[in-house]
């Protein structure tokens, strides 16, 4: 089962490599990973998606908690949450395709952020499923580049992952 795990991490040199190293060392998967400092510059917020059964995920969260640099860990998928990912796509946009791609971008509430004589750069945000669907919806259009940020997530409601 796919899980989104949020980690509050000391923003120090080497902290990220400890998290990433833990996953390879213990044979866990990382499907995506995003990390950036929070409003408190001494802390980083890291979101990673992984797959595993309850047994594996329990071990993943325990092992993450065991890292000295890790302040808090939360499995977002355990409760109501919001997940977002941003994707930038460079597509071949010529002839009839130009109009077709534009329509598709509108349907997905994306934006064309760069227009060239033969290309568009499209920006889409949403959950990973929506991004996958957009790629599918492009059909025969030629994709020149795909850049995805990986999932960011946050829990709904009062509860917050903070110090």
């Amino acid at each position, binding site marked *: 089962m796919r899980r989104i795990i949020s980690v509050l991490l000391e923003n120090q040199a080497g902290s990220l490599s400890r998290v990433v190293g833990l996953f390879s060392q213990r044979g866990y998967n990382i499907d995506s990973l995003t990390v950036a400092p929070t409003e408190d510059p001494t802390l980083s917020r890291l979101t990673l998606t992984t797959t595993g059964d309850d047994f594996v995920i329990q071990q993943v969260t325990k092992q993450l908690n*065991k890292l*000295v640099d890790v*302040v808090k860990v939360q499995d977002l998928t355990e409760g109501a949450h919001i997940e977002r990912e941003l994707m930038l796509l460079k597509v071949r946009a010529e002839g009839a395709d130009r109009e077709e791609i534009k329509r598709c971008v509108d349907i997905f509430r994306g934006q064309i952020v760069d227009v060239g004589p033969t290309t568009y750069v499209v920006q889409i945000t949403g959950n990973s499923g929506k991004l996958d669907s957009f790629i599918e919806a492009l059909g025969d259009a030629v994709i020149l580049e795909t850049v995805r940020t990986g999932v960011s997530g946050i829990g709904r409601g009062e509860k917050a992952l903070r110090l």
Partner: protein
Amino acid sequence: MENLSGGEILVRALKDAGVRHLWGYPGGAALHIYDAIFKQDEVKHILMRHEQAAVHAADAYARATGEVGAALVTSGPGATNAITGIATAYMDSIPLVVISGQVPQEKIGEDAFQETDMIGISRPVVKHSFLVKNQEDIAETLAKAFYIAASGRPGPVVVDVPKDVTDPNVQVPYKYPEKIKIRSYQPALRGHSGQIKRAVKLLLSAKRPVIYSGGGVVMGNASEALTNLARLLNYPVTNTLMGLGGFPGSDQQFLGMLGMHGTFEANTAMHHADVILAVGARFDDRVTNTPDKFCPSAKIIHIDVDPSSISKTVPVDIPIVGPCDVVLADMLTLIEAGKDRPDSDAISEWWQQIDGWRERYGLYTRPRYEPSDGKLIKPQDAIKALYKVTEGQAYITSDVGQHQMFAAQYYLFDKPRQWFNSGGLGTMGYGLPAAMGVQMAFPDAPVACVTGEGSIQMCIQELSACTQHQLPVKIIILNNQALGMVKQWQDMQYGSRYSHVLYEDSLPDFVKLAESYGHIGMRVEHLDELESGLEECFSHKDRVVILDISVDEAEHVYPMLIAPGSMRDMWLNKTERT
């Protein structure tokens, strides 16, 4: 506040952290630190002959004293050599601070001479690590390192110190922090009281209980509490390889070691238990055999200071996260205050059953190996003789292999911190430097390294350091002319094809080798010389002695769990199995 250079601060901070002995090996990147060591005499530095051995010695010193061990190495090869020692300590949860020199910060990343990324290369085998970037940070970083190494589940911490940070020309005020607080690190100090209540209730309801205790009891100073609890309840106790000495080995309630080469009675009792109290043990694959066949009818209580140890390989029913000594003391208090007592009828019936197993195939009821022809020395007999001659009071270190298992089986450890071996990583070469660490901790006590002719050669260079630092350890080689444990597996699983386990007459003369280092060398080849040889060996109180004992080359270690299978599936000798 006094102004000191980085090197001086580092050494002063070691002293303030309580370090009395620092095991190490100098080199370019550590020169400023070594100069600061030269100028003081409070922290005693012990020059070893290899960085791996320096770390092993510091590790054993920590195991012996309960203090944090400390080692100092230089950058590059010094650092990489230390890795095996660090990994050994990591697997056995030993509190250790290893300081490595590093090239100056402006050179980091340039592939400078003797540069290696120590933080990166050590990452999977440390509890934590620090790269010190400023003189001002040295004292606090070291204080944090010692705190992290010793608290919670102990482990090794690496502090990597670039050479510019210890520059003697730059001086800053020195202050060692009185208290350390790390917001992201808060190890459990007590067990959950509700869980402890549930555990006590289950424990008292048991009809076929077993207490299974590990290295966490020894390292967590919980032996006394464990022994009191076991005696109060009259429950049988088995120890892991790392847990030996956690409960007195010669006690009637002790079933011996469990696991791969555990006793028949311990493994069989585990398999039939209805309640298992696991304390400071981690359900290692050398204990459980096939995890899903492990103790099929048992409810399991697991006390461990590390939450990630709980339900890692075997799901448990009542987990309690907390220090073993505190949790066991809480359990004792609860039992003593309450009215409930164990079901004495059921427990005495259980003991009858266990005694029946002991009688049938127990390790200590009668010899479980072909007796000697009167001349040939059985390795098991060598350990029994060692036990007799030292009256069970020696500190024993071992290397890895058959000799290690024989020592664990036949030397009955009555005290915690009496037995030292690389249980988790299985590091050949641990024994001799470990004996040096123990001897440094207890200068007047008998310390013996039980080893093989294979393992001893992995850190044999330390015979020289023994001379220099007057560490009169006794080296007992069970010499079977082969890498015995590998050969045993080749016998059992590879049709006795002895691929690269024999030396083809290339072994050194250990007697002459000892003498060349200024030590005493002795050889024993016949059974009737065994005890007198050992007695003579230990009579040389102030000398290092190598006692090279020729043992039966064909002997195997039994019992041996059969994989895949449960804990009751064992080879009992070369032809019989359960």
